[in-house]
């Protein structure tokens, strides 16, 4: 009989000391190439209350648009000072913060270039499986043709796009788990 997938279970409330290490929310080193950005946000539940015990992870390509992984064989530069993985816990206000760089564009299906994005996983007490979403960037021309973004109803699409004033290094990305303005989550 073929092996079957091991079921998912919640991360629970007590992961902190084991999974969260100081500095895991900072993806950049002095020599990392690319435009520095800070992504800040909050995770909010169906009552509008902050989710104070969540873990959020990000995975992204480097500034050239290449993932630091054997299966990304694009002829783009790898950045030895950038891996692309970060992890943070939400605080007593449900807030999280990452220091990273804006990723370059990566090809999607049929060779169509995807808009620059950051892949996100969210784990928490009460989440029996992780939630996956993506952070896109405001005013990126590739957003108009991104095969993921354009399949989403326009009124929900905005939940995937970080907000930030022009030329600002600080982007805001809130995650609403349930209810009005619920963030779009993906079946990955």
């Amino acid at each position, binding site marked *: 009989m073929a092996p079957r*997938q091991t079921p998912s279970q919640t991360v629970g409330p007590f992961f902190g000391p084991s999974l969260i290490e100081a500095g895991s929310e900072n993806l950049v080193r002095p020599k990392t190439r690319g435009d520095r950005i800070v992504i800040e946000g909050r995770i909010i539940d169906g009552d509008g209350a902050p989710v104070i015990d969540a873990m959020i992870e990000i995975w992204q390509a480097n500034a050239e648009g290449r993932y630091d992984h054997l299966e990304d064989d694009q002829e783009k530069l790898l950045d030895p000072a950038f891996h692309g993985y970060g992890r943070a816990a939400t605080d007593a206000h449900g807030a999280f913060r990452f220091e990273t760089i804006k990723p370059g564009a990566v090809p999607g299906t049929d060779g169509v270039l995807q808009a620059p994005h950051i892949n996100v996983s969210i784990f928490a007490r009460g989440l029996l499986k992780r939630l996956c979403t993506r952070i896109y960037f405001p005013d990126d021309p590739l957003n108009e043709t991104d095969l993921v973004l354009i399949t989403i109803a326009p009124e929900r699409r905005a939940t995937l796009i970080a907000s930030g004033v022009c030329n600002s290094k600080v982007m805001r990305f809130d995650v609403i788990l349930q209810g009005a303005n619920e963030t779009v989550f993906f079946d990955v």
Partner: protein
Amino acid sequence: MMSSYRRGDIEAHPPYAHEAYASTHKRAPRHPLIRIAHTLSEITGPRFGRELIRAGDIDLTHFNGGEAIGERIIVRGRVIDEDGKPIPETLLEIWQANAAGRYAHPDDQHPAPLDPHFSGNGRVMTDTRGEYRFVTIKPGAYPWRNHHNAWRPNHIHFSLFGPGFATRLITQMYFPGDPILALDPIFNSIPDEAARKRLVASFDIETTIPDHALGYRFEIVLRGRDSTPMER
């Protein structure tokens, strides 16, 4: 050629909303998930090297200059995919309550003793055959506030990455014969009985070390590759 990963097995995994588990009520999304095709974003993922593993990460029974109290156990198993292919050099993170059923976490207010010689945190990499092994003490059961007289069965939390973003998994390992399993809303959120059984480790006399520690086996199956190649 690159290929995508198989999707989450709908019989294996719990739903987001599970009435008996109160914390899901305000946290489960109401909209259905939107399925996206696998691209480089989903088939790539973070990698971790062995340099991450520190002394003590694979033996939780000694911490802070002393020996943890409790029943010493050995947990071992293999991490494979749905085709039975071993997943080598992948990181497992583990965390658990101490023998008295208390986590070394500031928010755990259960009035059971903390053990100064038990952190409850470990890390291990699978070897080239996908095998892992660590030594710990058997975690205690503890009460929680989900419903009247609610207790979590003995369990160890596992976090795995596998080869790509799509294969990430966090789960819990349970112990055979635990009477609380039948009453636990988290364990029973998994609708399929056969799937639930895959989270229960098996006692293993081969892993057991005479005069030292009982052994358990816990096999972990991550998603396999899809047979259809990924469109590029």
